[in-house]
């Protein structure tokens, strides 16, 4: 009996220390994220988790993208653009230091872009910066970019995680010990469990409220739910929709529903029969009941799309009614195309929940018009190999999460196999146009071509559903760019 009492006593003691720890954390935050970043260098990896930890927290670019998706000054305090749109002159913030104490100046900017554009560069988005012809250091606080052609997305692209400014002294170690100029410096990375950041007090800008932030890696939904309920994490940036009802009615939590840049599409191999026939693709578009898929795969949180464009973008045009749900019409079109009895195809699905569930619903919708889908579940590396690299697929479901990525359709070698010279010319023109009104007209034209050609099945825009402690404020509800920006997050009473 004595032993039993002792155990209870010890547990009570441990319990006390646990709850007192939790109470003291008013300028600290612990954020649960589903995936661990492979490295912490945003210039050498595409994983969203890299930007979640580092973008605008550890690292900054010349430009930053704010929560409305607008470009704002960052390390560049101001800039001028020449009338021909080819010369950008940036004035840099004074008194900026990297977290290792070295000073930031125009040489670091030049180094960053020379490294990004080098022949042996491993920057995943190098192509976006190909218009850059030269980067010239005028003086320590002025740097001039010359472009080979005007680029309407240039400033936005400078605001991406891929274009954060690095220092020659530390760039090669950023994968495991990142050094940037941002308001938070890297403290430690307990592999497999968390990354810890602390406020960098010599920061050049306004100091944020939180003094410490950690990102805790929890992949399992039930485990994340327990961690939130137990107060072990203070929030999570994007949580599984099926778990949201647990938190919606709980006054200790709030659920933030917002938009993302992720278009979930039925990727179609346009280079392969029968998908090379427009009528077949139109028939498939008519066979898709988006509402049912959105309800089933995203619990109603996704937003229907009719082309490859995010609904929150000012250039967006609603094309969801181009080929409305109409199984009758789908069967007729299939018959016209020479498939009166339909056909069989494979649907290769990556290991993400929305894709697997959408795939099952889609298979039953397609079966109604005579298209028999064989579902093949792939792990991620195999999906990349089979579908993306080898283009060995009929259909797939995946979300394309890069902002403003309609330009991928202009690459005939991309895995869609879509080769339309008219569209390619249009994108070239759009890229080279800097006038907002003109850009909007061209972007709408591009969206319309993709919708009419039914290049892919356009399903829905992924939603962002964050769950946070009710006393935490300042989180971005939307994700116009990948990241969890800590700058404005603070506790209120």
């Amino acid at each position, binding site marked *: 009996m004595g032993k039993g009492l002792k155990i209870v006593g010890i547990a009570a003691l441990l319990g006390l220390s646990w709850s007192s720890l939790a109470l003291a954390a008013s300028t600290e935050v612990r954020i649960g994220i589903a995936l661990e970043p492979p490295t912490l260098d945003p210039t050498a990896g595409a994983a969203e988790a890299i930007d979640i930890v580092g973008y605008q927290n550890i690292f900054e670019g010349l430009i930053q993208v704010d929560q409305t998706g607008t470009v704002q000054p960052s390390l560049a305090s101001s800039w001028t653009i020449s009338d021909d749109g080819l010369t950008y002159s940036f004035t840099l913030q004074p008194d900026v230091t990297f977290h290792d104490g070295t000073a930031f100046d125009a040489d670091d900017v030049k180094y960053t872009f020379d490294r990004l554009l080098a022949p042996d560069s491993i920057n995943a988005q190098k192509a976006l910066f190909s218009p850059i012809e030269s980067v010239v250091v005028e003086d320590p606080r002025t740097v001039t970019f010359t472009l080979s052609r005007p680029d309407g997305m240039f400033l936005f692209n400078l605001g991406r995680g891929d274009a954060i400014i690095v220092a020659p002294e530390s760039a090669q170690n950023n994968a495991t010990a990142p050094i940037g100029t941002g308001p938070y410096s890297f403290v430690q990375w307990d592999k*497999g469990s968390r990354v810890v950041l602390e406020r960098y007090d010599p920061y050049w800008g306004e100091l944020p409220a939180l003094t410490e932030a950690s990102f805790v890696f929890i992949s399992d939904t039930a*485990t994340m739910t327990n961690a939130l309920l137990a107060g072990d994490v203070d929030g999570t940036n994007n949580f599984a929709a099926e778990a949201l009802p647990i938190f919606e009615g709980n006054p200790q939590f709030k659920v933030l529903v917002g938009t993302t840049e992720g278009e979930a599409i039925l990727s179609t191999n346009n280079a392969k029969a029968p998908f090379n026939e427009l009528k077949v693709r139109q028939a498939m578009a008519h066979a898709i009941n988006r509402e049912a898929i959105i309800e089933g795969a995203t619990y109603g949180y996704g937003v229907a799309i009719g082309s490859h464009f995010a609904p929150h973008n000012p250039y967006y045009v609603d094309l969801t009614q181009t080929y409305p749900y109409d199984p009758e019409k789908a069967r007729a079109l299939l018959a016209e195309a020479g498939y009166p009895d339909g056909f069989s195809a494979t649907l290769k699905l990556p290991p993400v929940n929305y894709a697997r569930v959408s795939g099952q619903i889609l298979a039953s919708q397609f079966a109604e018009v005579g298209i028999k889908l064989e579902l093949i579940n792939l792990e991620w590396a195999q999906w990349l190999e089979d579908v993306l690299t080898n283009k060995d697929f009929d259909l797939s479901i995946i979300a394309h999460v890069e902002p403003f990525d309609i330009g991928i359709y202009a690459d005939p070698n991309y895995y869609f196999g879509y080769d339309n010279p008219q569209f390619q010319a249009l994108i070239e023109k759009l890229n080279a146009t800097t006038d907002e009104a003109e850009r909007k007209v061209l972007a709408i034209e591009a969206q319309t071509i993709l919708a009419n050609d039914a290049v892919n099945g356009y399903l829905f825009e992924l939603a962002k559903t964050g769950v946070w402690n009710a006393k935490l404020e300042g989180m971005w509800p939307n994700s116009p760019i990948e990241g969890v920006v800590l700058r404005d997050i603070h506790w209120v009473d």
Partner: protein
Amino acid sequence: MIAFLVRRLAGFALTLLLAAAAIFFLLDLLPGDPARFLLGITASPEAVANLRLQLGLEAPPLERFGQWLWGMLHGNLGVSYTQQAPVASLIAGRLAVTLPLTIAAMVISVAIGLPLGILAARHRGKALDSALMVLAQLGVAIPNFWFGMLLTLIFAVTLRWLPPGGFTPWSENPLGALRSLVLPSLALALPQAAILARVMRTALVDIQEQDFIRTARAKGMTMGEAVWRHGVRNALVPVLTILGLQFAFLIAGAIIVENVFYLPGLGRLILTAISERDLILVRGAVMVLLVTVSLSMFLVDLAYGLVDPRLRERGVAA
């Protein structure tokens, strides 16, 4: 004994070499590319090719195998493709969680399982025996991840005595590290304890019918004394076999429980490395597991000799 040791060690080395070759070339057949994984679906083929070159993935397989073996002989397991950190340090970091967790789970399962097994055997056929065996059956049947979630709900979410998961590094707070391991080691230990209890009971029940127990009884010992002095030690041989297997299972097989408690253990490391095609890390981790499990089997063999001198003379068959 020396000759036996030398034979065992030579066999051990040959096993490891063959295993290394198998691990290397089989994994090489796996489709998928760590460079593509890292750079994502919009990266240009050119950037992917550059990264493959930097990672040394373009060299012919035999050359890479040679480099890997040579490195291992010098204690160098290479650098992870996707995490760009030394494989040895990544594995060591995970062993700092997995080894204490495994040992704690085994200690708990022995502390619970063996006494219950002995108790059940002593009361064979009575109500206590049946009750204990129903409990053991339940323990075997309950999945450990489910039990883990139950423990979290009670002790972390409701009572808030212990953290629901995660791991405080030993260097930061040893007490915190221990606290992180309490619930997961309990979750892992329960099914193992149930198995041990059943094995112990069966072994003891068999032994109670042996001649030497009858002899001991005839010399005037009570049943309890006879079982305690002669029986338990004899029953330990099957128990040791099970313990050796359980160690091998726990060291790599705790993945699901690691996920439930988001512990940075070896199992999750391997799982992630496979999905990222970080093959150099997978190979390193599997080699470490192989050595550990082979060593544990070797130790079990030695332990047989300690509890049963007859096995020592026969040169250990198992």
